[in-house]
């Protein structure tokens, strides 16, 4: 008795992406754990984030990233209805949101560097802040940047008539994961370090 693959299994591409995402989540878990541990061991952990630009920018970044997730599901939805032109447009919208996120983040990073925050020192006393801050947010930003490249290739291919509905969905899985990680980084890194 032969059974179509789709009936018994999740497609290999989708399962592969999910397994990658789980292992990537463990990488972030390790970094977040280190951040938490170092932070708990330092009674005078810096609380450097003023409302502006720190919290205002990171809140905006959260909104931009959530919106990019919305445009990405719209892309997957359009591809399901076989509307390739629309799909490509939604993917471009997602890329623009991702680029906006990076632009906001770099502005914020430059602001902090101008205040004297480096990997090893900061102006607020306890030197243990820079490495975890730049490490966590930097790894996340690297994910956003590679996501933009990924979606660029995907969008261009969709426009040229290549790739299937499933390929777009798998690309969407990666993009939503990057959004999901930020849902933890934003409260952990920013909201618990608001300047009192």
């Amino acid at each position: 008795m032969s059974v179509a693959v789709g009936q018994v299994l999740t497609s290999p591409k989708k399962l592969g992406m999910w397994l990658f995402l789980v292992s990537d989540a463990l990488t972030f878990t390790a970094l977040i754990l280190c951040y938490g541990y170092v932070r708990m061991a330092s009674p005078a952990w810096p609380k450097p984030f003023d409302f502006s630009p720190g919290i205002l920018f990171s809140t905006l970044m959260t909104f931009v990233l959530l919106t990019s997730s919305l445009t990405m599901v719209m892309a997957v939805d359009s591809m399901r209805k076989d509307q390739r032109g629309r799909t490509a447009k939604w993917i471009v919208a997602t890329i623009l949101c991702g680029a906006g996120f990076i632009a906001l983040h770099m502005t914020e990073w430059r602001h902090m560097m101008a205040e004297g925050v480096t990997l090893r020192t900061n102006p607020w006393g306890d030197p243990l802040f820079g490495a975890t801050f730049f490490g966590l947010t930097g790894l996340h930003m690297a994910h956003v940047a590679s996501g933009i490249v990924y979606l660029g290739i995907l969008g261009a291919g969709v426009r040229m008539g290549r790739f299937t509905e499933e390929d777009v969905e798998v690309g969407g899985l990666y993009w939503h994961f990057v959004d999901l990680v930020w849902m933890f980084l934003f409260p952990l890194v920013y909201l618990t370090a608001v300047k009192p």
Partner: protein
Amino acid sequence: MKKYLAVWGVLLALTAVEVLLAYMNTPLAVMLGLLIGLSLVKAGSIVAWFMHMATERRALMWTLFPAFIFIALALLSILPDASRALQMVER
């Protein structure tokens, strides 16, 4: 389509609640608890609807579930230390 818009709206609203929480004089333990809870709800919503886990074959969910649990427990494993650190600051 409407479903996705609704999820997006809820995620934005929960983010706004989190930011408000950071500026209200909530006791730190309550604030941490709420932030953890809200983050898990947000992550769960993204996985369920944006990543289609809710409409996916159950087997995929059960394949990944142990890893999800491990990640959540690993992230929460230092929470007892957090409460000790709070007392350290207050003293």
